[in-house]
């Protein structure tokens, strides 16, 4: 085996400096075209694009569901949807946003970028890669097909607590489809993580040592490790629930000697690392965007890398802070570890601010989204530290304060970073520039809309509004604050429409994006936009974590040769 992987990773760089792909023994480019090419492609760039486009599709669907939720809650005693429909809508919204949008988008972006950033022609296991995408594709279809079955889609929330999700309570087939879909997506995630780790460890270009990897690639190493530790727990708990429902199991059936709290343990052992699986890749995105538009090298490279692993490690020991109120977990241990996570996260903020400090900051759209990410994530992070304290958690549990907290982390954090990533890498992926003017409209609409929607939810939570209620009585202040939140969601929707319009017009435009529109640092900016098959026809010498910058500005190159 050893010979095999050593062969292909580097043979691409034959000769002294410039190698033409045609001179190697690479197989001839695919003769297939059109839809068959996309269905059978094993090219990491095709797979990355498929992942990201599918993810954006589910983002739009889940966003529409969110608008229905906000319409229903805009006034007291609304009757737009009934209670069971409402439960299905928020379940599908949460499931789609988490499992079909944020995680797959991160995996798709990594699929596209990792081989480019490390100077490799493809992923280590190209066909496994294609398999993981298609498994995720069918997973999404399975989850949403619940809408068409008797009894409707799953209606038990995104964590489907047993015994609520057991067969005697959730009798419909929608819950089964939900379980199957998530089972497939968890297997897909595990296999993708294996592929990422193998690729990053073994397929780096000559001179691309681990300590010269771009931060995004480093964050994906940490994310992949987390996936490998956390996703099996999800697969196990889903399989157990399925056995309970169909094969007479009693894992979570208290009346038969099962233990419902075991479901919570297994779910959150996956569920909390999942939160970091959804944010670490985007810490990487921000760490790519900020130095480029601050015109400085990243500040504290080693600190950023080590903090990613500190976050990943600690996040494995905090799962039961979701279970403080069960009364059967050791609150002190989980509160202490949860507080500790704030330290490496603070290191990251310190490094980003340090990178911007005295830099020549250019306020392009990706940079605006990166700054918006930092501001929103800070609010989400600090409210997270608050509810990591058991006495506060007992009050805030399952209230809108919590809803606000995790939307600040995942909406204000991950979503803003995703938009930043799209504006940053769109020219590389598709060879077209998105409009800076529309991009800024998109940013401000999203930023204002987002904060209008979710900031007021903190007050609603403190006033005692519980999450997942389909309507509420006309209590003092509730109607007005909910109306403000609903107006904010409409502003966000306009922002998303501006983005869609921007993508459509850019795709139709005939202007080609330059290979390196931003003055980027990492290897993806060395090759053409979009990159050719097998990615590179040449590679610059790699002597620091900014090889493209070094090659273009040799007078400023940091000599990092040891």
């Amino acid at each position, binding site marked *: 085996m050893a010979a095999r992987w050593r062969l292909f990773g580097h043979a691409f760089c034959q000769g002294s400096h410039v*190698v033409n792909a045609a001179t190697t023994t690479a197989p001839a480019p695919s003769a297939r075209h059109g839809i068959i090419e996309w269905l059978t492609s094993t090219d990491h760039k095709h797979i990355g694009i498929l992942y990201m486009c599918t993810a954006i599709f589910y983002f739009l669907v889940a966003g529409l569901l969110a608008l229905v939720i906000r319409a229903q809650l805009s006034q007291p005693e609304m009757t737009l949807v009934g209670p069971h429909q409402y439960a299905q809508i928020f379940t599908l919204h949460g499931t789609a946003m988490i499992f079909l949008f944020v995680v797959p988008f991160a995996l798709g972006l990594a699929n596209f970028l990792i081989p480019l950033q490390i100077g490799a022609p493809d992923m280590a296991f190209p*066909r496994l890669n294609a398999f993981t995408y298609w*498994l995720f594709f069918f997973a999404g279809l399975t989850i949403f097909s619940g809408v068409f079955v008797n009894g409707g889609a799953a209606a038990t929330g995104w964590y489907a607590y047993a015994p609520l999700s057991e067969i005697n309570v959730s009798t419909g087939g929608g819950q089964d489809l939900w379980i*199957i879909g998530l089972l497939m997506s968890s297997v897909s995630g595990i296999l993708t993580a294996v592929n990422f780790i193998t690729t990053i460890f073994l397929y*780096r*270009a000559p*001179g691309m040592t681990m300590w010269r990897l771009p931060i995004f690639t480093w964050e994906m*190493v940490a994310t992949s490790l987390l996936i490998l530790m956390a996703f099996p727990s999800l697969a196990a708990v889903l399989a157990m629930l399925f056995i309970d429902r169909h094969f007479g199991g009693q894992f979570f059936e208290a009346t038969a000697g099962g233990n419902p709290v075991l479901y919570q343990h297994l779910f959150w052992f996956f569920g909390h690392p999942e939160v970091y699986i959804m944010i670490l890749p985007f810490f990487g995105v921000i760490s790519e965007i900020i130095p480029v538009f601050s015109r400085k090298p990243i500040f504290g490279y080693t600190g950023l890398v080590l903090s990613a*692993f500190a976050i990943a490690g600690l996040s494995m020991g905090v799962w039961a802070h979701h279970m403080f109120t069960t009364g059967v977990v050791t609150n*002190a241990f989980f509160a202490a570890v949860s507080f500790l996570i704030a330290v490496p996260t603070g290191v990251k903020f310190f490094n980003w601010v340090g990178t911007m400090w005295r830099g020549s900051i250019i306020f392009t759209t990706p940079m605006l989204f990166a700054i918006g990410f930092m501001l929103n994530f800070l609010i989400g992070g600090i409210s997270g530290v608050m509810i990591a304290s058991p006495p506060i958690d007992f009050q805030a549990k399952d209230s809108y304060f919590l809803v606000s907290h995790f939307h600040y982390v995942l909406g204000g954090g991950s979503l803003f970073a995703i938009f930043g990533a799209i504006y940053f890498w769109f020219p590389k992926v598709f060879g077209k520039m998105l409009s800076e003017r529309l991009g800024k409209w998109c940013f401000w609409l999203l930023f204002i809309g987002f904060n209008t929607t979710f900031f007021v939810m903190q007050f609603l939570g403190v006033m005692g509004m519980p999450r997942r209620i389909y309507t509420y009585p006309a209590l003092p202040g509730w109607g007005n604050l909910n109306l403000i939140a609903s107006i904010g969601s409409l502003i966000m929707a306009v922002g998303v429409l501006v983005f869609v319009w921007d993508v459509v017009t850019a795709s139709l435009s005939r202007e080609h994006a330059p290979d390196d529109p931003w003055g980027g640092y990492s290897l993806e900016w060395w090759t053409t936009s979009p990159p050719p098959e097998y990615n590179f026809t040449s590679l610059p010498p790699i002597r620091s974590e900014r090889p493209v910058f070094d090659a273009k500005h040799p007078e400023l190159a940091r000599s990092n040769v040891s």
Partner: protein
Amino acid sequence: MTVGRRLFVSSAIFGIAIAVAYWLSAHNPDGAILLGVMAVALVFAAGYMFVAEREARLVGDQANASNADASGEQLAVFTVASPWPIAVAFAVFLLLLGLAIFPILAAFGLALLLFGLFRLGRESR
């Protein structure tokens, strides 16, 4: 020690440490078993890194390697396109759907899965 090995060894040490710390402070078997399994898996992965990287001399690990250092190596053959990944994914989909709804579908899915895996293996030769 390569960075990859160091990464897995330190993860394994961390896994053991947090499992022990949890057991000492919480005395809770559910969580201790979860963390224990995780620690064992990490120890296994760290051990595997030593076996797998025994002979590794990656050009990507040499700080001063130039593109010429990687020359003369033959490019491995890998597929440009394959219909089997999507077929196997579809087979898994049918298999699981069949288990939940319609057993005949599961049998069909299993057959397609085995056939697809067989063809994938053939393609690799």
